[in-house]
């Protein structure tokens, strides 16, 4: 079983000039803060070994938001929880790969060493804020604990800090509410409290696992904006796990699309949304109303593969409309550059391998580009010129893609 070599990464080190235009915000040339490479997480169950995460690699640079998107069972949550080993071990185990954070491989650390990383340099926000808060202590007490656990400050100073944090995450009347208990807060407010706790130690990295899924849309919008503000103000990197492509578009600098434990596609958010390269990503986009040439949505069909017995070849091939015979044999295809040879936008699909005809898959990508919907979505405030969106090299593709207008 040579799962390890199925993801040979074309790492070219320095980014090329053409690529530089794509990036904005976080410095892509900097050393990654977190670098996951070929991570394997297995769960031993009675039905057999589940390879929940099967050779996942991605980097997170300081101050960057990386969204890991996938359906349930794709392994996105296990990936996130494996970073600081929050998964239950056993039955889970990290069967291979490394998680480099600040130069150290977290998979090698002892429990005690890990505890000093968790919560202090890496903060967590979970889907259900109710579960992350202790109902018998006031929220102030819990934030004070978080502050004092990681920093040597007096009780009074920690209390002041708790009020300050609550105010900063947008809880009105913070000084009064600091003494209240979790049940006295609404769902959205509770999630703000959890975010305040995660920020208490001033982490470099936040791992947010579906932090808005349990919330209403109007509250979701508030929480997303708050996370964005935090990222900008403290230059905190965020690994954001979600199933919602709308949320990805709102938050991400870079996107990792997962399916059945594998990375299907990875790249800059504009690249992935404007030229979704992998047939799976394309299929996900087609599930959204208002994408592509028609207003109608199109279901993917079929169901997720059995986790104990995934199909050979590409994990998505049984549901893929473009699948050819070669898709069903061997390993998941290696991640290949879609436009360039570097790491800026890669997809794990046989059509991007040398020697295959990629016309159809690229045509589909073009049809799905946001501007591709005939005149329906193209009227943003289109006066601002699209600034250097690597259009030169992309050729015909870019015409549609650019119609959307300004960058942010």
């Amino acid at each position: 079983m040579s799962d390890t070599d199925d993801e040979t990464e074309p790492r070219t080190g320095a980014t090329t000039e053409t690529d530089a235009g794509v990036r904005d915000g976080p410095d892509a040339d900097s050393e990654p803060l977190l670098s996951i490479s070929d991570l394997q997480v297995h769960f031993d169950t009675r039905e057999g070994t589940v390879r929940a995460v099967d050779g996942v690699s991605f980097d997170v640079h300081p101050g960057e938001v990386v969204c890991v998107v996938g359906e349930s069972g794709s392994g996105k949550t296990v990936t996130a929880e494996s970073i600081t080993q929050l998964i239950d071990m056993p039955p889970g185990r990290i069967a291979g790969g490394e998680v480099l954070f600040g130069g150290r491989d977290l998979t090698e650390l002892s429990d005690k060493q890990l505890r000093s990383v968790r919560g202090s340099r890496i903060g967590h926000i979970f889907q259900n804020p109710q579960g992350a808060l202790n109902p018998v202590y006031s929220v102030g007490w819990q934030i004070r604990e978080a502050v004092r656990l990681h920093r040597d400050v007096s009780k009074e100073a920690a209390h002041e800090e708790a009020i300050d944090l609550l105010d900063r995450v947008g809880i009105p009347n913070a000084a009064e509410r600091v003494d209240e208990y979790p049940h006295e807060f609404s769902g959205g407010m509770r999630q703000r409290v959890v975010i305040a706790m995660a920020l208490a130690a001033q982490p470099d990295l936040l791992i947010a696992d579906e932090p808005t899924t349990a919330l209403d849309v109007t509250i979701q919008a508030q929480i997303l904006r708050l996370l964005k503000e935090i990222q900008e103000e403290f230059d905190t990197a965020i690994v954001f796990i979600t199933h919602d492509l709308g949320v990805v578009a709102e938050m991400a600098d870079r996107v990792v699309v997962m399916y059945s434990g594998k990375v299907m596609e990875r790249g800059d958010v504009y690249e992935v949304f404007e030229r979704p390269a992998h047939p799976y990503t394309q299929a996900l986009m087609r599930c959204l109303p208002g994408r592509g040439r028609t207003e109608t949505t199109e279901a993917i069909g079929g169901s997720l593969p059995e986790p104990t017995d995934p199909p050979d070849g590409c994990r998505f091939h049984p549901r893929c409309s473009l699948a050819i015979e070669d898709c069903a044999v061997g390993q998941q295809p290696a991640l290949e550059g879609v436009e360039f040879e570097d790491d800026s936008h890669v997809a794990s699909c046989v059509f991007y391998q040398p020697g295959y005809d990629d016309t159809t898959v690229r045509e589909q990508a073009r049809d799905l580009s946001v501007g591709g919907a005939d005149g329906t979505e193209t009227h943003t405030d289109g006066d601002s010129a699209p600034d250097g969106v690597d259009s030169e090299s992309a050729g015909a593709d870019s015409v549609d893609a650019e119609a959307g207008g300004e960058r942010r």
Partner: protein
Amino acid sequence: MSLLEVEGLTKHYPVTQGVLKREVSRVRAVDGIDFDVERGETVGIVGESGCGKSTAATSLLRIEEPTDGVVRFDGDDITDYGKADLKRFRRRAQMIFQNPKSSFDPRMSMGDSVAEPLKIHGMSDPNRRRAIVEDLLERVGLSADDADRYPHEFSGGQKQRIALARALSVNPDFIVADEPVSALDVSIKSEILSLMEDLQEQFDLAVLLISHDMGVVRQVCDRVNVMYLGEIVESGPTEEVFENPQHPYTAALMSSVPTPDPRKRGMGTELTGDVPSPSNPPEGCRFHTRCPAVIQPEGYDMDQSAWRNVVDLKTRLRNEGVDLEALAEQHAAETDDESTDPADYGTDELADMAREEFDIPAQLGDPGADDVLERALDSVATGDQDEAQALLDREFATVCEREEPPRQQIHDGRSSACHLDGETVGAVALSDD
């Protein structure tokens, strides 16, 4: 005549206290809603959690007894029905629930589950039941053999298909689907929705779809009702409502949905605050405590966002009041000042803290309004909050706080309950930031 006509449907839950169960207040989950559903049509009710949409569904089917109101099904008022009539009605009106996991008995085969409504409604021949079940399973995209399998052998999407089959087994005219796809993945979601659309056509069903998901509603509903805090604030044909919302809440709700396009980031209107409690809904328009378009008092012309924050201050004064000690404590937490005792600060300082707490800018954009606000904040700082409240209520009176907006007919089949006219709503919704 419509298949279903709902008039003034109301469901209040009493909150009781003590051994005598004295009613101390009531949760107004659904507070007088009107809508109708035609034959073969899909109508949506959309709103955030706690707006009463699910309660509306359960009380119109009399799964819970409505407090008040009339529900006419095929011309008959079902709120008058006795037991036998109700059972007959329930054969014609079925319900599908959000969580397919909990809506099946794990110890019953799927075939038995699907056949159960048939049994209840008097089909005693097991062979005929079996034949119907097999036919239905095939119609929802499964195979006849699946009748002998058990719930744990199916995925969530498959279970929801079977739930559809079960609802259809008694050949109903009307289905209430409460968040039928919320628990499913995106790729499965659109599959179930298109199955629902197909079946609806085949069986000529009327569907009432309850959802918080704007995308789902837009995809399948012909008409939509938007609910907020127990009331319908806007209704009309789905595309019209989505394209051109007339109520500020609808506009904000639509724009809160993140667009799957990274170039349209942060373009939504953000609603501040939480949904108020339905046990004590705000006076006047229930949305005024969060409305970005809340109407300005007569004779003033402030920046709308500043005015929005002033309304927040007013709301706080009316409810719990402004806590000066908390303000001082917060001030101490944020600055180098040590004291947490408001007595150590001057009136001006405290007024500034209050201003900061509500994010009210130094200038409201109207000198007359600045003057009133300054006086009010001074009263707050000196501890005379009643005076501050009285002053603000007198000077900054807005129709949104006073009067419940009437439901205005925009054209046939389209209505909205807002004091503003539609054009203003659109303008405010777009001019955010």
